[in-house]
Every structure is written in structure tokens, then in C-alpha cells.
């Protein structure tokens, strides 16, 4: 449905921030240019400090004793031998930190140290701080924990069948954490009008972020009697809230969280973690600085990575391939805790409609608790799994109907400036251009389906897939009516502009965008701007580096603060020069009359004359996303100020005997709205191609599930970087990148997200390419060599050339989803509410 009003803030006459999305490229001095990142020098000089690089006098080292069993009640903990070890200065157990926490208000189900029950191998039980790191380890080995083991739960089928014992005493019932059932439009009618219907079952194995830096935290209860926590976190604001909750009665304003430079995040450092809470408490207990640096194995236990998701998708299309109805089910293996899981569940159903127009849509999602490391948000959060399913299924449909997979996608594109069936507001939409670019660049029309044979006997294939992703979640994680991002500017008479912002640079360049945007508005060198970020004592709140929100949200806040500073300076300069303020130009470190450029002054003099006139100069800017159109329960997940789009063609060369394949070339086009920095945007796209390729080919968070001496052993199979395969420099293919710029009016200078979207089409494009090469389907990620081999073998034996989960009734767990929430689509005259939903009471923010 096309809206009468283009997308934007419709509730106010004037937008909360000037987006400047319509600025002409040639008029921009800094935006779009490949300017060096503000932190680049420190990083190449080895001067950047990460959390484990910090030390303090009298600092203690803390270690966590973790559960060795997958599910058990704690019978007793004896720490007396550990306490007697020379050098041990503090011991904490669950009773010292009784208040539970969790990233989402609806799942406050974690304790820093398990008080009575452990739920996976790796759950922390005891924290010990000592003068030497090795002493702390030794002391952990001296602790005696007695467990009474409980039945373990290993996967979604088992969790659905096991009502008792429950991992948690909350959730839907048994070991079902969440059940969602949303119906948009008229499914019956949609399928009735379909001329071809397909039902397929897919599985996407879990995988993990594998940041190069292991999580580390330093906590210090300082001379003022206040607590400071330096941590490798993507979300200092949420950590701040979790600490204020768990360390009660310590007031929130006595806690300072500094998110120190993250050595890679990808979503893996966006929960408040048990080790952070325990280190803070230990610092309060001992009165000394306390540091914990996780080992690589412990990073695997922290996890919060990609959920393993089993999916069943039924789609109806016309003969021409137009989608008339989609019925999608997802079953998420959540691991031991809630984490972001509620949001993850909704995300497995939210964005199907943003890429292609889906007229009638039914989504059912179930998340289960299992005895594994907790899953959470990894780059793409909950959307790569359904995207894989849908894109492979579309490929199959194109094949069934004899259509070009590129054509079927172009024919189904979701329209720009429209509302989707599930009330997501699409603004700019460049997917068509993306598809056309990768199709032309890869020689799709000429080379697809040709099965060329390479010199070494491998068969070439091309696969296409598309995706969309959000530019920041439209709603905050906890309910509140406050801005999502704030920026303060200080203008100093030295000519220095300092930007303060709570955003957190995890390598994506969020510190740098502040300089680019402010520099563009004020006409000064971005690298001359001082950026102070992610320190809860000094910087205004930004919700964190997750959901690809920072460029759009802090970018708009920075733009507003800079525009306000510009207004003040313009007034001061206008008075001084006797020129109307509206005629002043800010460029090249000067402020001058547009009609007589010689008439002007330096930027520094502009500050001086304005400060003399108005006093100390400082401004603020803030950003709140546009109100969402989805008002039904669950409609809070999916809305975003804008959506990015990506299309990829992947080339594979498959050995038809062994299933071993390589990926020599990837063509990736991404609709970024506008690239604020060309080189940095390229880096995000290439990094996404890389990480997506790892997920497609090899990465998996697999567990050993076997019996040993009558007991079930339930251990992570591969908690090391050698066994957890990820692509090295040798596996990285050639990448031809197309940056598509379709400026969105909700983005600063039209910018949309780039950090996550381009990862999404990689996995289905690889699977589709393998089919193009050797005619077998691997309906499972990772699409590892042995699965291709198994599918080839099946085909040779005359069976279906497919590897994947069972398509039968046993393929997915039996779950009673109850009645669906029924929502009329915009084209049925719906208003975004569910017509059969019981009245809800709005919960106040805690």
C-alpha cells in the first residue's frame, strides 16, 4: 500500500532533527569522502587501550568457577580451602548477589553467580579474586561444589516434549519460553488465490560472534566511594542499569560505566554479563580494583550468538511468481537464559515483509529453554535464519515455475513509501537497483545454469539472494518515552569543538561519524573535532551499539546539536559583520558572507565573538525514532526509521564427487541510503560478506550430546578458535561491491544502516549457487562440505538430492500455539491493532 504522505515524522510540523537527506553529493565537503577514522592512528600505532590493557595499583585478578554439569541443583559449596590459600582476597557466591538481571525487562532470569541451580556447562557459580591470576585459578580448583543432577534438555524437540523439570519457573509452560502467533490479512484467501504452493523445512545451526578480543572488565570502588566499571561492552547504558539493579542499594548515580574500546562485538557484548556484575561486587567487597579477563573458552560460554532455528515455511504464489500468502513457523533453541530471546523470536518473523510484498502473512514463533550457552543477538539478530529459508524457497519456486530467480524477486519487491502487512513503514527502497547491479556484474543471465567445468573438474554455479535490515530498533529495550540518543557539543574559544555522546565504537566507526556530521554542518575538519564517548558519567545516554542504530540515531542527534551550534555562531557573526545570519556560509574553517566570501572570519573567531556576546557556548541534540504504526502485541519488534537492502550473487566451484566447494567471487550490492564515508562503508560491506561466508560454509556452535558412564555429557564441541572454523585470509573470495545510494529522509544526510544487512544474503546465495552447480539442495546452514556430499550421494542413489531437516510431521516440534492475534492489513483497512486482542495495560518503566 502506498501512503498518501511520504514516510517521516508526521506528528510534528518540524522534524526533531534536520535530516538533510536531499543535500547534493557535490555540495558535501566531508560526507561521503574516505576520511580516516578518528581512532585509526591509535589503532595502527598500538596505542588503543582495550579493557585487558588496563591495570591499576593493588589490582586483583578475578576468576569464575563454572558449572561442569549441564543441569543441576547446587547442594553445597565449600570455599574454605580456597579462602585459606595465600593471596586470595575475596570470594563471592550466589547468595552475595541475590538480585536477578537480564537485558530485557521480561526476562530478568540471570544471576551473576548461580544461587541454587546451574543450567548449562559454563554457568558461573563462584567468583574468586586474588593478587595473582594463577592464584585465583588455583583457588577455584580448591572449591568443592556438590550438584544434584537433573534431566538435561538438548534441543527444541526435547524441550517441547519435556514439561518437567523446567529450566525456569517462568515462560509460557514447561520449557517453552515464548510463543508468538500473529496473523495479518486473510491467509485462507491468499492460499486460495495461489496457483502454486510450496512447503519446505529448513534448519539454521547456531554460531557465535567470535570477537578477537575476549571480554574483560575492570571495576574499582574509588576514593569518592563510587563505583567505576570499565568494560568491553556494546551497551554501557544497559550495563549501567543492570549494575544499579543488582548492586542495590548503591544509587545509579554512584555508578560509572565506561565502555572501553571493543575488540569486536557483532552483538556478543550487548548483554550485561555475570562477570561484569561479579567484578563490580568484588571491587566493593575488597576495596581494591578487580579485573577479570575471560579466556577464549569462556567467551564461548558467554555466547549470546545466533539461535539455532528450525523453520517451516509455506508460501503461495501466482503462476507469475507473485507471493499471495506466507505461513512461517520458527522454533528457536534459546539455550539456558532469556537474553534478547523474546526480541529474537519476533525478529524471526518481522522482516519477511520488508523485502518482498507479502499480501497475507501468518507467523508462528516458539523459543525454548535448553541446557546450552544462552543465545542472543548476533549480526542480523534473528533475521538471517528466516532470510535463508525464504531466499532458498524462492529459488525453488523460481525453479518450479521456470522463472528467473532474479525476475521473481524484482516482481515481488516491497514498494517504497509503504506500509507492510505487519505495519512496518518502508521509506527509501533500493533493492531493485541492487539486484540489477549484481545481475549485470556477475554475468548472471549468461552464466547461470551453464555448469561450466573448471580445469580441476569442479562445476561452477551462481546463486542469488536478497535481504533487508533495520536501521535501528524503533523502540528501546525497556519501555520509556526518552530519546534514544543524545549528543552534547562544547565550543571552546581555542576553536575546538568537543562532542560528547554515549555511543560505543565497536570498530564500526561510530566515534568517527560524529566528527563527519558535525564537521559537515559547521564547515570544519572532522579530524579536528574531539570526540568523547561511552562514559555514563560524562556523556548523554545513547542506547548502545546494536540493531544498526547508531549512524541514524546518534547521527541525527549530532546533526541537531551541530545545527543549534551553527545557529548561535551565525547570530554572533551576523551581528559582528552586519550581514544577515541566513547569508552566512560555514566552510573551510571559516564563517563568511555568501555574497562576498572575503567578508568573514575564522571559525575560531566566530566562537570567540559569539562567546563574548552570549556567554559559554554549548548545545545539545537528541533523537527519538518516528512513532510506529504497529500497535498489536509484538508490534514493537521490527519498526525502524528506515530499512537497508542488499542483493548478492555468489559464485561457487563444487567438486561433484566430494561436495567440497570453494567460493571464488562474490558480487554484493547494498542500498545504504547515503554512505557517510565511502571507505568505512566498504569495510562494513566486505566484513559482512566475510562473516556471512563463514556462517554459510563452516561456522557452528555445536554440542556433544552423548552418554558417558550412564550420564549424559553435554559439552560444547569446539570451544577454541582452531576447532571453531572461521574463514582465514586464504578463504576470502574476491568481492565486487556496489554501493547503492537511495537517500532516506529519516537518516542523517539520507544514511541508512550498513553493518548487518549485507551479511544476510550470503548464506542463501551460497546454498542457491550449490544447487545451480550440482543440482542438490542443502536446506541447512552451515552448508558444509559433508552435507553437500550427503545430498550428492542421495541423488546418486535415486533419492531426493537434498540434505536438511525432515519435511514430515516429525520435522518440527508439536506445539499448541493457541489462537492467533488477528490483524487487518493496511489494505484491508486495518489500523495496526489486533481485532481479537484483549485490552492490555501499559506497564510503566521500572
Amino acid at each position, binding site marked *: 500500500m502506498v501512503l498518501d504522505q511520504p514516510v517521516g515524522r508526521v506528528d510534528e510540523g518540524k522534524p526533531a532533527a534536520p535530516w538533510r537527506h536531499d543535500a547534493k553529493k557535490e555540495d558535501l565537503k566531508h560526507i561521503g569522502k*574516505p576520511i*580516516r*577514522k578518528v*581512532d*585509526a*592512528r*591509535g*589503532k*595502527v*600505532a*598500538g596505542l588503543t587501550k*582495550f579493557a*585487558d*590493557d588496563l*591495570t591499576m595499583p593493588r589490582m586483583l585478578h578475578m576468576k569464575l568457577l563454572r558449572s561442569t554439569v549441564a543441569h543441576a541443583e547446587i547442594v553445597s559449596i565449600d570455599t574454605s580451602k580456597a579462602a585459606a590459600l*595465600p*593471596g586470595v582476597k575475596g570470594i563471592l557466591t550466589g547468595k552475595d548477589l541475590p538480585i536477578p538481571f537480564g537485558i530485557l525487562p521480561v526476562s530478568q532470569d540471570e544471576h551473576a553467580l548461580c544461587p541454587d541451580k546451574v543450567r548449562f556447562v559454563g554457568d558461573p557459580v563462584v567468583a574468586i579474586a586474588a*593478587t*595473582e591470576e*594463577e*592464584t585465583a585459578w588455583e583457588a577455584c580448583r580448591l572449591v568443592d561444589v556438590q550438584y544434584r543432577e537433573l534431566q538435561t534438555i538438548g534441543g527444541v524437540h526435547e524441550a517441547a516434549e519435556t514439561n518437567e523439570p523446567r529450566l525456569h519457573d517462568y515462560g509460557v509452560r514447561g520449557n517453552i519460553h515464548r510463543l508468538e502467533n500473529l496473523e495479518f490479512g486473510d491467509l485462507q484467501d491468499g492460499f486460495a488465490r495461489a496457483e502454486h504452493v510450496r512447503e519446505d523445512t529448513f534448519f539454521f545451526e547456531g554460531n557465535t560472534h*567470535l*570477537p*578477537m578480543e*575476549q571480554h574483560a572488565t575492570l571495576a574499582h570502588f574509588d576514593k569518592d566511594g563510587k563505583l567505576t566499571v570499565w568494560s568491553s561492552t556494546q551497551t554501557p547504558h544497559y550495563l549501567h542499569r543492570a549494575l544499579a539493579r543488582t548492586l542495590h542499594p548503591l544509587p545509579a548515580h554512584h555508578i560509572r560505566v565506561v565502555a572501553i*574500546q*571493543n*575488540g*569486536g*562485538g*557483532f552483538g556478543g557484548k550487548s548483554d550485561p554479563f555475570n562477570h561484569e556484575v561479579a567484578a563490580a561486587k568484588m571491587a566493593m567487597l575488597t576495596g581494591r580494583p578487580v579485573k577479570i579477563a575471560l*579466556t*577464549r573458552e569462556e567467551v564461548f560460554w558467554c555466547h549470546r550468538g545466533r539461535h539455532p532455528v528450525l523453520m517451516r515455511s509455506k508460501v503461495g504464489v501466482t503462476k507469475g511468481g507473485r507471493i499471495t500468502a506466507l505461513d512461517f513457523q520458527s522454533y528457536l533453541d534459546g539455550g539456558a537464559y532469556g537474553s534478547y530471546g523474546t526480541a529474537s523470536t519476533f525478529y524471526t518473523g518481522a522482516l519477511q515483509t520488508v523485502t518482498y510484498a507479502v499480501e497475507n502473512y501468518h507467523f508462528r514463533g516458539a523459543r525454548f529453554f535448553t541446557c546450552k550457552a544462552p543465545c542472543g543477538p548476533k549480526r542480523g539478530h534473528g533475521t538471517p535464519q528466516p532470510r535463508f529459508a525464504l531466499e532458498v524457497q524462492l529459488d525453488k519456486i523460481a525453479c518450479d515455475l521456470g522463472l528467473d530467480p532474479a525476475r521473481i524477486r524484482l516482481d515481488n519487491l516491497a514498494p517504497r513509501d509503504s506500509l507492510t502487512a505487519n505495519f512496518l513503514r518502508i521509506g527509501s527502497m533500493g533493492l531493485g537497483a541492487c539486484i540489477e547491479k549484481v545481475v549485470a556484474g556477475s554475468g548472471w543471465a549468461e552464466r547461470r545454469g551453464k555448469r561450466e567445468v573448471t580445469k580441476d573438474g569442479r562445476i561452477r554455479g551462481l546463486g542469488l539472494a536478497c535481504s533487508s535490515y533495520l536501521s535501528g530498533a524503533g523502540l528501546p529495550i525497556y519501555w520509556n518515552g526518552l530519546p534514544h540518543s543524545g549528543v552534547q557539543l562544547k565550543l571552546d574559544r581555542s576553536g575546538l569543538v568537543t562532542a560528547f555522546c554515549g555511543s560505543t565504537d*565497536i*570498530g*564500526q*566507526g561510530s566515534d568517527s561519524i560524529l566528527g563527519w556530521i558535525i564537521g559537515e554542518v559547521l564547515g570544519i575538519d572532522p579530524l579536528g573535532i574531539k570526540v568523547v564517548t561511552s562514559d555514563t558519567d560524562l556523556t548523554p545516554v545513547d542506547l548502545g551499539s546494536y540493531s544498526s542504530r547508531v549512524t541514524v540515531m546518534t547521527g541525527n542527534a549530532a546533526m541537531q546539536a551541530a545545527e543549534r551550534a551553527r545557529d548561535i555562531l551565525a547570530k554572533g557573526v551576523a551581528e559582528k559583520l552586519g550581514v544577515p545570519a541566513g547569508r552566512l556560509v560555514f566552510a573551510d574553517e571559516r564563517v563568511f558572507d555568501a555574497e562576498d566570501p572575503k567578508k568573514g572570519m575564522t571559525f575560531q573567531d566566530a566562537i570567540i565573538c559569539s562567546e563574548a556576546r552570549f556567554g559559554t557556548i554549548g548545545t545539545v541534540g537528541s533523537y527519538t525514532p518516528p512513532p510506529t504504526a504497529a500497535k498489536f502485541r509484538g508490534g514493537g519488534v521490527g519498526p525502524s526509521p528506515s530499512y537497508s537492502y542488499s542483493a548478492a550473487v555468489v559464485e561457487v566451484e563444487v567438486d561433484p564427487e566430494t561436495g567440497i566447494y570453494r567460493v571464488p567471487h562474490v558480487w554484493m550490492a547494498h542500498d545504504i541510503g547515503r554512505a557517510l564515508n*565511502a*571507505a*568505512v562503508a*566498504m*569495510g562494513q*560491506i*566486505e*566484513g559482512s*560478506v*566475510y*562473516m556471512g561466508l563463514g556462517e554459510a560454509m563452516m561456522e557452528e556452535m555445536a554440542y556433544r550430546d552423548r552418554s558417558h558412564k550412564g550420564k549424559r555429557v553435554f559439552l560444547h564441541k569446539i570451544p577454541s*578458535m*582452531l576447532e571453531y572454523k*572461521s574463514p*582465514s*585470509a*586464504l578463504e*576470502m573470495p574476491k*568481492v*565486487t*561491491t*556496489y*554501493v547503492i545510494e537511495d537517500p532516506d529522509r529519516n537518516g542523517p544526510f539520507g544514511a541508512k544502516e550498513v553493518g548487518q544487512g549485507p551479511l544476510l544474503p550470503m548464506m542463501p546465495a551460497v546454498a542457491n549457487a550449490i544447487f545451480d552447480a550440482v543440482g542438490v539442495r542443502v536446506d541447512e546452514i552451515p552448508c558444509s562440505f559433508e552435507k553437500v556430499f550427503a545430498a550428492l550421494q542421495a541423488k546418486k542413489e535415486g533419492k531426493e538430492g537434498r540434505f536438511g531437516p525432515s519435511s514430515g510431521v516429525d520435522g518440527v516440534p508439536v506445539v499448541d500455539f493457541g489462537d492467533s492475534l488477528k490483524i487487518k492489513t493496511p489494505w484491508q483497512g486495518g489500523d495496526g491493532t489486533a481485532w481479537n486482542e484483549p485490552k492490555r495495560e501499559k506497564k510503566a518503566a521500572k
Partner: protein
Amino acid sequence: MSETKKALATFQVNGEPHEVAFAPHKTLLEVLREEMNLTGTKHGCELGECGTCTVQVDGVPILSCLSLAVDAVGKDVRTVEGLAQGSELTPLQHCMADLGAAQCGYCTPGVLMAADALLKHNPKPSRDDIKEALAGNLCRCTGYLKIFEAVELAAARMRGEKAEPSKESIHGS
């Protein structure tokens, strides 16, 4: 453990002598970071799997997490802190910074030490040479491409060529 008798030795690091008392079972990584406060060298696994701890010993890139510190005594150890001459970055460092080859920056010191060693003995490396030299340095951010391009650009500039990054690598095709 705390009772372990410490060894006293002088290390030659970045051209300077460092006299350090350290437990003899400590790795070179631990002694560099914890005793000399040279925290530019990182750790990602301490099992020799990720390459972030790469330093040069007598010009050869090694994994400092797998090397005993005592073995480096009397040898020429170079870390990322020793690359720049005064405040002037090397061409490789400049190219890495300009191309955005350092995203989170955590693998960067190790990558720099491995690539710097490559360029010392191979002033005109092919893309395959670079891939081979960096095969032991995992990077999760960049997809390696900007790193390869930075090494190639630096190599060209070090040969005295007036090289610029290609338009495709900055703006796309």
C-alpha cells in the same frame, strides 16, 4: 604461583634494553604485556590459534603466546610500539589507517607485525603472497580485503611509486 622464583634478564625490545624479573614459565606475550607494559601486543586465545599476539623476533614473525620469554633473551624483539619512527608512522601503518583496514583494531598489531616482516624480505608481494603471510592472523571485522589492499599500497609506496588506492576499493564498482 607467587612462590615461584623469578628470573632476572635483559630483553632487547624495540631497540631498547629492558631488565625484567619474571617467572621463568611466563610466555613472551605475558612478559611484554605484564612486565614491560607493552600492551600493544594483544591476545585472542593464548593457544596459538588467532595470531593477535604476533611479534617479530630477529625479524621473523612469531606467536608470542607460544614462546617462552626466556627464549627471547639476547634476541631482537620488535612489537607494534616499535614500528613508528618517533611520531612518524610507517607507510604500512598509514595505509592501514587510511583504508580502514583497522576496524576494531584488535588484530591490527599482529597483522602489522606479520605484514611488516613480509615487506622486509618481499618488497613486491603478490596478493597470494600476502594471503599466505597473513593466513595465521584471524580478523573478524574487515574480511581481510582492506588489509590486503593496504599492504599492496604500502609496498608500492615503499618502492617509491606514487600509488593511490583504486576507486573500486574506496567507492565500490
